[in-house]
């Protein structure tokens, strides 16, 4: 009986490792940018192509930067959540239209609604690279000093919003 104890112990340890492994999401690559200054950029606006947008304009505010695209499924998924959030007016959402065409992006917003204060156009995806975006949607919480405080990879759902993003936003707004 005793000689089965060691194999059993090894087996249990392995099961433990595999069980933990199952709960992890390999798609979630922790961003090294959290805690660092949000990369600066100047991009043309979506609705008024002759105007530009730069995150510098928002110094002193807590805001969300949401990378999205009309071709992206996850963006449609999180869209109702963003609409609700925009309606509540708790925190302004700024969009970055990632590797998209202007017409399709505008049509998408007309069709489903526009939760954004303003949308910047990142047609070549260069600003996306500076922010470490590797798949839309991705959402960044940026504080008053222009630092990235949180990065949401994938769609924002009600759970993430209530448990992580909103508490953090309130805390940052009170600073």
């Amino acid at each position, binding site marked *: 009986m005793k000689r089965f104890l060691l194999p059993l112990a090894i087996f249990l340890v392995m099961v433990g490792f595999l069980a933990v492994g199952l709960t992890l999401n*390999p*798609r979630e*690559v922790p961003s*090294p940018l959290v805690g660092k200054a949000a990369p600066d950029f100047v991009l043309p606006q979506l609705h008024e192509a002759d105007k530009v947008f730069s995150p510098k304009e928002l110094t002193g505010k807590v805001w969300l930067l949401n990378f999205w695209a009309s071709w992206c499924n996850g963006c449609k998924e999180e869209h109702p959540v963003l609409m609700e959030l925009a309606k509540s007016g708790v925190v302004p959402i700024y969009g970055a239209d990632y590797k998209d065409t202007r017409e399709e992006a505008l049509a998408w917003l007309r069709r489903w609604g526009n939760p954004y204060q303003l949308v910047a156009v990142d047609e070549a*995806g260069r600003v996306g*690279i500076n922010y*470490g975006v*590797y798949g839309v949607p991705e959402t960044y919480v940026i504080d008053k000093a222009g630092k990235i405080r949180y990065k949401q990879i994938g769609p924002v759902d009600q759970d993430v919003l209530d448990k992580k993003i909103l508490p953090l936003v309130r805390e940052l707004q009170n600073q």
Partner: protein
Amino acid sequence: MIRIWTLMVVLTMAGVAAAQEARPLAENPQVEARLKVLAVELRCLVCQNQTLADSNAPLAEDLRREVREMIAKNMSDQDIINFLVERYGDFVLYRPPLRATTTVLWIGPFLLLAVAGTVLIMALRRRQKTLPDVVVSDADHERVVQLLSDGAKHP
């Protein structure tokens, strides 16, 4: 049956027709050579088990473009790798650096090897002790030889 075959042939043809022409290499062969060396060290963030060199994901294409431009600007390999690590973390590297968080990864296998070796040596020693020392007399030895040779004659 024939109908199925026809369908299969037609479907295969469609695949051939849809396949794209191979992309021409960028103009500068020196840049391409450096990109090739760098890109096999870098991980594609979208299809995580492919290198930047292998992947056809749009992001990989964009990252190759960035790397190409940095090479054209004469940046060193280390600077280019730092640029990507700053944005995407150590995950972009196929060879993880030795850090506090990666010590288990680096030392773990050697630790396991040492543990396994110690267990093996201990088990061997213990077994040696349990083997009884049997003294075989000359007469017994003779008998064994006798029995073995008899066995060989009458199988």
